[in-house]
């Protein structure tokens, strides 16, 4: 009797399945249904992330910030780089954005040019052996070695 009821249930489910999703076995729904919901949910969550994001793409931001500086940097030189950024991404993005200028973190060994990227300081920093050459706004400054 239990078998009979099971068969009736299976027949009913098959007929419902055939009405809406003809030609496939029920087991295929194990893949089809998750695909339907996951893909749509993933799209909507990406859309939501974009509209609710507080920050823009950092590389885009750095490309804009460093664009005027790049014009004054000697091509293919090695340049010192100092920053008050505590975020790990700052240096790697600066390295990427400033190619083909090679930058090294800190003041040693001293190079002919020094880039200072200070977002939290209002006063112009001073570096021994360097003179400020130009300020670019957004906390970016270029210093030149004195001799």
């Amino acid at each position, binding site marked *: 009797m239990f078998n009979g009821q099971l068969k009736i249930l299976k027949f009913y489910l098959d007929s419902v399945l055939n009405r809406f999703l003809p030609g*496939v076995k029920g087991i295929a729904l194990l893949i089809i249904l998750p*695909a339907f919901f996951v*893909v749509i949910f*993933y799209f909507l969550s990406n859309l939501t992330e974009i509209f609710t994001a507080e920050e823009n*793409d950092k*590389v*885009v931001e750095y490309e804009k910030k460093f664009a005027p500086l790049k014009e004054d940097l000697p091509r293919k030189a*090695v340049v010192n780089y100092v920053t008050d950024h505590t975020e790990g991404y700052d240096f790697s993005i600066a390295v*990427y954005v400033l*190619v083909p200028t090679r930058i090294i973190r800190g003041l040693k060994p001293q190079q002919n040019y020094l880039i200072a990227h200070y977002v939290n300081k209002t006063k112009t920093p001073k570096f021994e052996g360097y003179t400020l050459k130009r300020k670019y706004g957004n906390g970016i400054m270029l210093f030149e070695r004195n001799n």
Partner: protein
Amino acid sequence: MEILAFIPPILIGSAIVVMIFPKFSLKGAGAVFTVCLGSGIGLGLTSSTIFLWLAWFGRPGAAYRVFEVGSAILLTTIAFYRFHDDTSGSQDEWPADCGTNDVPIKWLKRLCIILLLISAGSFGLKTFIEGSYGTIDTRITWNYRARWLFRGGDQWEHAFYSPVARDAEYEDDKGHAADYPLLVTGSVYRGWEIMGNDHFSIPIIIAGVFTFGTYLLLYASLALLRNQNQGYLAVLFMLVSTQFLHLGTDQYGDVPLAFFILSTVALFALKDRFPAISLQAIVLTGFTASCAAWTKNEGLMFLVLVILVHFIGQIGKNDGSNLLKEFFCFLMGMLPVMGTLLYFKLKFAPRNDMVNIPTLKQTAFHLLDLDRYLIVITEIFKKVYQFNDGIVILLAVYFLISGLDRSGKGKKHILSHVMLLFLMMCGYLFAYMITPYDLRWHIGSSIRRLFIQLWPAWVFLFFYCVRGPEQSAAEDQPGKLSPEGL
């Protein structure tokens, strides 16, 4: 406009596939297979040619563009004549009897296409709007080196500078993974050189080609080997694995590597299923396996394992002269890209940060550390179980209920494909054992990507073996390809 830069490599690669398979390569699923595979091979070849041009002749200019476009036109012309020439090639390349069992389920096809388009929308949102420049590895490795090739002028070799291999002049003046092969970097550089500017869309388009090329290649190969419905189902399953798409948007080399691993496995499966076209398929596996090696160092391991499993491992089991012929064909396919890889590794690439003699001397003793094995194996199993929120469990349940497909003689070699992927995982295990980095950090930062490299191939093998979704037994007859189904 940037999309125009991709026409020559797609034409070159597709022309090669059409020349090798003139009869089925431009019909239905065969056409999808041709364009996807051809795009990958084309990008592999053009990334090699542009690197060689830069190394031998200097910055590629108008002459390179003429060379590339000329090659595309020449190869396309030859492919066109080959396609239309009924008397060229052997009739045996295409099995004569064709069944008509491939009846695609229309709503399934439409659903697959719609969900692929929505996924493309997700891809576009994540790349063009949210993160145009990828993530950290993109800007310290893949596109960083491409920038040096493009902007570096006569100092372009700085793209391969790494203080891991040489005495660092400055502590932070370094690239990461500078010895990585150049398929992705070279393709990005090629796109920038052709367009004349380093627009962010070029690496995004390359990432898109490989990400969606993988989905479509999965569909096409299963459509050819089983039927279209199985192909649609496999693609729907891959779309559930959102981590694959997510990694594609990061513009790393893992998704292109996954593409080439899938294409190699699929070509070997085609070769086993249709012995009449085995030599032709083997030539293409040479291309795809060498492109895998040209993408990432793990691809080099894959190439070695392909030779081990499919050639050395067949000694004594198959006819020796046939095996030699197949190996020769494989070498022919491998030659162009492998030659470039060898040249790059010998002349430009710095020492690998893990596989080098000083590091191996320090870390060889790790191979005797049983606790380390336990940690690595546990983490691998945990990753398999947790991957994409337990998607493997979905596969297991599907298999338990659906069962194995028992039609088709070609599946006799399925174990060699499984062995190949399993050995790749053993290779990853070995890499973790000898890593000079903190073990847990290294596993945490990379295991997801290593798994994704093999994921499409595993999905392919699964859907190759499991029974189809149709209510009737609408399976292809063994040894036949169906042009209606194509």
